[in-house]
């Protein structure tokens, strides 16, 4: 069953099309990997799904309902939660408090703190609970971004390059965490540049180019397509 169906969505910025008649669907409990060269419309896709940009045309169906008119925080409350490519921690709050923010929307403070702690432990932030968030290194910030999103009790999680800018050994735990989330039944849309990670994680892979869907299918199949190799992998993988 598809949890989210994107139908014929278009989005233009000042005459330049960022998304062009895009169709995509994610099945419940699966990971959809989205790849594409810079400017292919990946982040725009996340923005459109989470409500940060309004669609010019098309529909976004979530759990059977069209959500394309709802503001971001309402979508988030319905379980559509995103992360940002550049981590946006709440400076001035501790790591624990950062994670508490979404939990506080639903629970009392004591309960929120308890839950946030357990999420932090799980997300490998247990040692940094009382550090000021802005003092974390990049890797920590990426983890915090993920932990905070997870704390918002998502049904579908949209990850914008969760591994961007990380070294190999720092990626491993994140890959493991994402896989665990999937095993918990979470649906995930993963936008990522790091090929290895996407191939390792995604159930279905979509390739965007100039806002259009270039290919769609099982990762191993998609990677074999010539068009994909030309458009995206050309330099990096040749």
């Amino acid at each position: 069953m598809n949890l989210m169906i994107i139908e014929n969505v278009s989005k233009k910025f000042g005459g330049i099309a960022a998304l062009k008649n895009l169709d995509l669907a994610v099945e419940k409990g699966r990971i959809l990997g989205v790849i594409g060269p810079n400017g292919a419309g990946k982040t725009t896709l996340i923005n459109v799904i989470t409500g940060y940009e309004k669609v010019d045309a098309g529909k976004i169906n979530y759990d059977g309902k069209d959500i394309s008119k709802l503001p971001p925080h309402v979508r988030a409350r319905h379980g559509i939660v995103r992360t940002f490519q550049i981590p946006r921690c709440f400076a001035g709050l501790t790591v624990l408090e950062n994670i508490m923010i979404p939990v506080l929307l639903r629970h009392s403070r004591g309960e929120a703190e308890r839950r946030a702690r357990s999420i932090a432990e799980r997300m490998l932030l247990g040692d940094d609970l009382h550090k000021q968030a802005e003092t974390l290194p990049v890797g920590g910030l990426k983890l915090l971004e993920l932990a905070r999103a997870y704390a918002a009790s998502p049904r579908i999680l949209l990850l914008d390059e969760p591994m961007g800018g990380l070294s190999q050994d720092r990626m491993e735990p994140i890959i493991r965490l994402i896989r665990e989330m999937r095993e918990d039944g979470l649906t995930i849309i993963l936008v990522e540049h790091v090929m290895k990670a996407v191939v390792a994680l995604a159930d279905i892979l979509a390739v965007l180019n100039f806002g259009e869907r270039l290919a769609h299918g099982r990762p191993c199949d998609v990677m074999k397509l010539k068009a994909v190799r030309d458009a995206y992998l050309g330099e990096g993988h040749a």
Partner: protein
Amino acid sequence: MDYISPTSIDARLAEEVALSRNVIALIIPFIILFPVTASAQETFRIGAPLPMTGAGAAFGEKFKKAYTMAIDEINAKGGVNGRKLQLVIDDTQAQPPLAVTSVKKLVTSDNVVALIGGWASGVALAVAPLAQELRTPYLLDHPALDDITRQGNDCVFRLQPTTGMYSAALEDFLINVVYERQKKPIKAAYLYVDNAFGQGVAKYGIMPFFKEHSDRFVLGVCEAYSEKALDYKPLLLKVKNASPDVIIFTSYLTDGILLGKQAKEVGLTAKLVSGTGAGHSMQDIYEKSGGAVEGYFSSGPWHGDVTSPAWKKWRGDWEAKYGYPPGEHEIEGYVAIQVLARALESVKSRDVVRQREELRVGLKRTTMVTIFGPVKFENFDGYTNQNRAYNLTALGQWIGGKLYQVWPKRVAERDPKY
């Protein structure tokens, strides 16, 4: 709840409470000791809430000079009843809320026997009821808005005419000379500065006049303008478009300068252009507009017979002391101190509260002639303690860089160029 994270907001709040408690505890003794009570005084202190900083500072400075000169002269002659006068200035920045605090400080902490000045009408409106409440005589020497002496405050005295009187000489001239010569309805335009002074002159002076004489005068463009604008040309173009015979301005100094210059620039002329005192009677307007106001009239409070020897001598003294010729502010301030000094002669007690009451009675009884005319505070037509004796305005004209009195005829220095 059993644990509070050490950097959580609550913990921080607790620390803040502790820290601010210490800081405040440290400060409080200073605040309590703050107002210094003046020692028993051998002088008469006169409190002047004036704008010494901010946009009105130039005028605060003028009054400070005028008061200082008068007080120095009186003290040189031994003061009043053997006591010297002493001026205490407090900066109001021309802001009524600050003026209120200033006055409380002057009255209760500096123990002044009288209040003087205030410059702006808004300040005086706030100070007057307070002076009344504190039973301290307040002598106004410049704030002109009519309402100030219409509140029945017996501690509030006003030396100079009110805004409603400013334009009297001009109105007289318009009817008796301008209309008589043309013999058909005259088109007029009126621009006034949008502040208490401008609104006052418009409301109590110019507008009622044009309403009353609508058979002879047609008031076309009639607008309040903002005081600090950079460009008045749009406004002046609008006036030019209506091609009036008579243009009247009610302006302060800076706006008056720009209006004069820019009227030249857009080529705005009329048979008669007149200001209503204030900016247009100040020497500065001629020099700083580069002579653009040559030929302008100005109808304002009469500041004495400028041809009299006493006036000329005073003018000479002023120029010798400060290096520039005095204008309306300077003479108002100077005379105000003389009036206070005269009234202080009847003050005999040593207790400041009683001194104030004696001074109030003394002011009420004062009848004197100063260099700019007679002074007597009277109650009439809803005014209280308003000096009526010189309820007279004169029309001046800028001719060759000097403002000559040209109307009414009996005080004219020369004939108007019209």
